[in-house]
């Protein structure tokens, strides 16, 4: 490291500065969450080291937060996201298996319709779907929150690509041994598809964790409100208390951040595979 080239050093500096610029708002959330309310906007002008490092620490905002209904919202978000990943993986792997391994007439048409209709971002049809779900009395229910996340076009696409990459001989040999289609799926394909399932699961988790418009419409009751909706309504609930807002923002951000840091290669691969790789 001692004799590093100046151009390389400059490159590293620019790269690091870019990362810090993107991280700065997040860091500001974390710092603000731990400092007293009156300190949040106090050290901004002029900008200094105190702006980004708390001089006085407090956990008050987290106490306020978790004495409120926010704890319930975090639980709702987690429950909905985990249930969506489990249910969604089942729905999407079954579909992807049929669309890649089983040969049947009309497969391409089914694939096209399925992917195109899943690719239309869900928010575009939020209004009519809300009408339908209200008719089915699914407003303010977990089912109403979970159902729209189960079919994920990107997940079906990813899993199908993965299955297509497995050798045909696997299936043929298993069938010669007398396995049925479901056994082939359950005992041969599923055990092999771990990485693809993680990628697909991540996509579904993040989809639900981020959902805002749909939960806002379908589950406004406190009992079923998700964290992403809760935090947006803090402003009115707490006046202009930014402390609890920052603490809440930190709680909601940390969960996907931890997941992303651990599974970043899976996430990047799945994102990349839709855009450029095969």
């Amino acid at each position, binding site marked *: 490291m001692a004799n590093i080239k100046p151009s390389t050093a400059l490159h590293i500096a620019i790269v*690091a500065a870019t990362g810090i610029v993107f991280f700065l708002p997040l860091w500001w959330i974390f710092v603000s969450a731990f400092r007293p309310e009156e300190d949040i906007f106090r050290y*901004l*002008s002029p900008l200094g080291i105190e702006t980004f490092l708390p001089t006085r620490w407090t956990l008050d905002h987290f106490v306020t937060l978790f004495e409120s209904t926010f704890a319930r919202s975090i639980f709702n978000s987690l429950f909905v996201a985990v249930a969506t990943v489990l249910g969604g993986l089942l729905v999407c792997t*079954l579909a992807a298996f049929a669309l890649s391994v089983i040969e049947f007439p009309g497969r391409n048409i089914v694939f096209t319709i399925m992917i195109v209709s899943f690719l239309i971002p869900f928010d*575009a049809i939020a*209004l009519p779907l809300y009408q339908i779900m209200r008719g089915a009395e699914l407003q303010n229910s977990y089912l109403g929150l979970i159902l729209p996340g189960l079919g994920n076009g990107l997940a079906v696409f990813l899993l199908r690509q993965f299955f297509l990459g497995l050798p045909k001989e696997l299936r043929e040999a298993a069938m010669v041994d007398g396995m049925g289609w479901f056994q082939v799926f359950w005992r041969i394909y599923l055990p092999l598809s771990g990485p693809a399932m993680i990628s697909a699961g991540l996509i579904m988790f993040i989809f639900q964790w981020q959902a805002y418009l749909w939960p806002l419409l379908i589950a406004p009751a406190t009992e079923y409100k998700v964290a992403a909706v809760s935090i947006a309504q803090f402003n009115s609930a707490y006046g202009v208390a930014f402390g609890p*807002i920052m603490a809440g923002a930190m709680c909601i*951000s940390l969960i996907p951040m931890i997941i992303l840091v651990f599974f970043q290669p899976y996430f990047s691969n799945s994102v990349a595979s839709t*855009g450029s790789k095969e």
Partner: protein
Amino acid sequence: MSKTKNIYVALAFLAPALLAVVCLRIWPALLSVHESLLAPRATTYSLENYIYIFGDPIFQSSVWTTLFFSIVVNPLQIAISLGLAILLNNKLPGTGFWRTLVLLPVAIPASVSAVVWAAALRPDGLMNALLGLFGLGPQPFLTSPQQALACIILVTSWIGVGYWMTILLAGLQDIPKSLYEAARIDGMNRWQQFINVTLPQLRRPLTFVLVADTVSNFLVFAPVQILTRGGPQRSTNLIMHEIYNRAFAAGDKSSAYAATVVLILLMLTIVAIQFRMMSDKGES
């Protein structure tokens, strides 16, 4: 083993997904078409709702705002993502860490980002403090009809560019090194290499990002609803917020459905292109 016999097996595997597509996508889409053709209190189909919304200055301005927003935000985000991808496409120590930092905002709910930026863009907030470093006076940001849309662009870009960067980064890594060596032998400088090697080789991921980014930016909702509620002076009233307002604040479901159909048709066109590109790639 006949292919026709397989159809029943395939249907059994596909049943849950097909049910989801029909109930959660196709039915709502058809319901919108049906409702959009029924004027308030009418019993027969007509185009009245469409005539009404396209004659309505508020809807018109929302469409123009959305188009203007798209024309600015998409090229901007793609340029930034490409710049980031090139900058972060190296094997220097710690690059993986910095990439993760750029990607982090993608994973955070847009509503959380919006709430935090609401604080950062306050007159006494973080943003004005940063501008102060460069000797710039405090800006009104969200309360100014001239600056509010730019703020929405800033927030959506902070959220999104890491995602598009990831796709372009993968594209960059797929470019054979030999192409650059050949270009160097031909005496091309960095800029010429970028124009003659990088850009043509990135055509596919760039087009993909353009399409996918356009779709997602048409549906920006949380930042608008939380930061500006479409204002000031409707300067940030993007179409998703306009539909939501019509349906739930103004209670005008009929014209909201007509607007929804317009939006779905637009999405369908763009998504069809996206799908073509995704499946072309699967075969090559």
